[in-house]
């Protein structure tokens, strides 16, 4: 079957609207969403694997498997399944090129 979104939202949140940026595209989310939920209700992946580059979209969803890290423009890395979204977050699927 063809779809370009992984998660299906079945319960709405009442929180404030939040806009984040992932790989250059704006994503609308709701305060309280995890980064992972925000990304997977809009797409199919959260990162590319270091060894081989294949797409990954998290696995355990409970902070154990460490497979859903995304990179933020602050240079840090965030575990998508346990980190809530915040207004203005700018995220990447791969580590930003090292800057001197």
């Amino acid at each position: 079957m063809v779809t370009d979104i992984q998660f299906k939202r079945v319960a709405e949140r009442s929180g404030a609207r939040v806009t984040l940026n992932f790989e250059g595209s704006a994503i609308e989310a709701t305060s309280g969403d995890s980064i992972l939920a925000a990304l997977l209700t809009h797409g199919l992946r959260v990162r590319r694997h270091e060894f081989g580059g294949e797409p990954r979209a998290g696995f355990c969803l409970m902070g154990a498997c460490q497979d859903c890290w995304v990179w933020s423009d602050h240079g840090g890395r965030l575990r998508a399944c346990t980190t809530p979204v915040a207004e203005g977050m700018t995220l990447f699927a791969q580590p930003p090129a090292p800057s001197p």
Partner: protein
Amino acid sequence: MSSIVIVGAGPAGIAAAEVLCAHGYRPVLIDEAERAGGQGYRQPAPDLALDMRHLMGSEAGRYNALHRRFSALAGRIDYRPRTLVWAVEGDTLHLLREGRAETIEAAPLLLATGAMDRIAPMPGWTLPGVFTLGGAQVALKDQGCLIGRRVAFLGSSPLLLLAARQYRQMGGEVTVVADTTGLAAKARALPGLLASPLTLLRGLGYMADTLRAGTPLLHGVTPVAIEGDGHVQSLRLRDAAGRERRFACDAVALGYGLKPETQLADLAGASFTYDPDFRLFLPKTDGFGRARPGLYLAGDGATIGGADAAEASGALAAHAILSDLGAPADAAAIPLARRVARLRKFQRGLARAFAWPVAQIRAQADSTVLCRCESVTIGAVRAAMAQALGPVEVNRVKAMTRCGMGRCQGRVCGPALQEIVAAGTARDGAAAGRLRGQAPVKPIALSAAGEAAP
């Protein structure tokens, strides 16, 4: 100054805190999550329009009671959410809170660290759209999301049926519930399951539900592959009759029972022994949860027992702490001990009825990925073992192949690695050894250590 410290705010940790409060103590309750409840009784965010009563079904009563009881502890315990314990050194717990390292002296220490799904690798299991079975439930309870629109549930676990039922209730399409343990094996496990007849009945109810909904329910399957171009598009398996079948789906929930999160117990000095029913190395405790003087273990982080056993074992460990601190014996501990023993016996029955698929794992092709962190295939492990002076024990295999060396520290691949190593030496799982815990139990950023002195 040291305090009674409980790590983990699931049913075991909450029950323990309750008992300690009732006896006049003010324990510290450390939890990594945003909100208490653990994984199974995870509390949805307050702003999420989820009907938990509906979702939790027959467990709703217990679920609500636990959260009510936790609320009643407010102000009586030193509750520290969003706090990771990343290392244990003697009585000192090393914490990470708000991105900074700090310590706390814990004496005595009660670890109630819970469990995660046990995973058997198969071709395609690293594709986006494959999640753990527990993760499928967390997505729903924590985020109000289903992991896909058409979901296949695969593994060997009573929770396959429960999660499939929740997904149907919430409007998801369940394309198949496929269990690798055959019906005959399940029938053989029945006597052990009679230790908890109500739970058994509940399970049979889920089975009937699934059949009524018209969802294919297969026992004794052999997974073949999860397929898709960049994300899950189908699940292929062989049914008990040996026919190959293909189910179109956009997500797979994978789970073969639970495995305790024992990393902290390991660092805190618990000793381990191989359990042939669960086919896992489990920390050794006495009947009350004592692992060594000053260290207590409770809940699924000690031995898989389910939420009810976790709650009882948490309370029981708290009674052991009180007794070791010199409090007079509390009669409440005796029925608790009986209850824990009965529920854990039931769980042993479940471990046989929903068996870890040893033969299927050992028969996996060389090309199947075993370690998803480091991209190590089963073939790479077999090749390392086959060479002269090749490793025959899991930690050594890890050193040679990087399997289990990545960010998750072998949490995900560990049980399957153990079977592959055991198969490579034609021995049982116990002989393959146990992946030793290493700090930090989860990754910590350099910045957590603070600034260097100029």
